[in-house]
């Protein structure tokens, strides 16, 4: 029994594996772009705050 047949109970039957795999990978990659942006936002502000604090000392 193939993986596609095993997962055929999901919506879209025998194509469920391919459809959910495509959408899942896309979701993870787009989420990754948002997470990268969010991490950069925090990192850059924290680095600049430290730099300005050092300059003030």
């Amino acid at each position: 029994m193939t993986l596609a047949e095993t997962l055929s109970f999901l919506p879209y039957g025998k194509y469920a594996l391919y459809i959910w795999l495509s959408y899942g990978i896309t979701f993870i990659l787009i989420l990754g772009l948002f997470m990268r942006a969010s991490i950069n936002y925090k990192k850059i502000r924290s680095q600049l705050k430290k730099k300005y604090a050092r300059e003030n000392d």
Partner: protein
Amino acid sequence: MWKWIQKLASPKVFYETTNKLIPWFFWPFIVLIIIGLYWGLVLAPADYQQGESFRIIYIHVPSAWMSMLVYFIMAVAGGIGLIWQIKMAEVVAKVSAPIGATFTLIALVTGAVWGKPMWGTWWVWDARLTSELILLFLYLAYISLNNAFDNPKTAAKASSILAIVGLVNLPIIHYSVKWWNTLHQGSMFNDMSNPSMHPDMLWPLFIMVFAFQFLYGVLALVNARDEVLVREQNSRWVRAVVTGEKL
């Protein structure tokens, strides 16, 4: 128009503008992606030949279109930076590269996953697939070159030249299905007044294309805003933004 471009070339105005524009791109993206996914995954009928598997089109085609559009924007912005020395154009080009590379990766991966049940294989060295893979390598080369220099000016110059040279790949991707005998299907939109798709399938596709355009917009704006802060960190206005001090 020229006056507006000159105004936007100021890092401070650019930063303030990106900040204001972010919600105008984020919320339309959320609304369009919800409508597009519901219409594409639930309401649209199954294809008479490909069955349910055709639903991969709603992420494959928008990401493939965006992979080319973002590359075009990146090369044009790089060119503007090279010719008119507008730093903000360099910023737009730099932040577009990882987003475009991700769209290209999505197009390639979803294409491979769609290819397995339809063609019986994950990959073929077909003209369309190979030229799209070259696009991914161009994005990766651009990112590597941009990170290879400490001086942002030199980095922007070298990577922009690469991006402009790589533009030649875009018509190759687009016309590959016409110029060569490919396994990949031809364009569905040769005649826009008579598309080869039923409106019930076509409309969610257009909605998803717009959703991906807004997605690019929001990600580019967020990343550009942060890139401006890094580049202008010695300016008084950046210090005021970060520390909350008054100018």
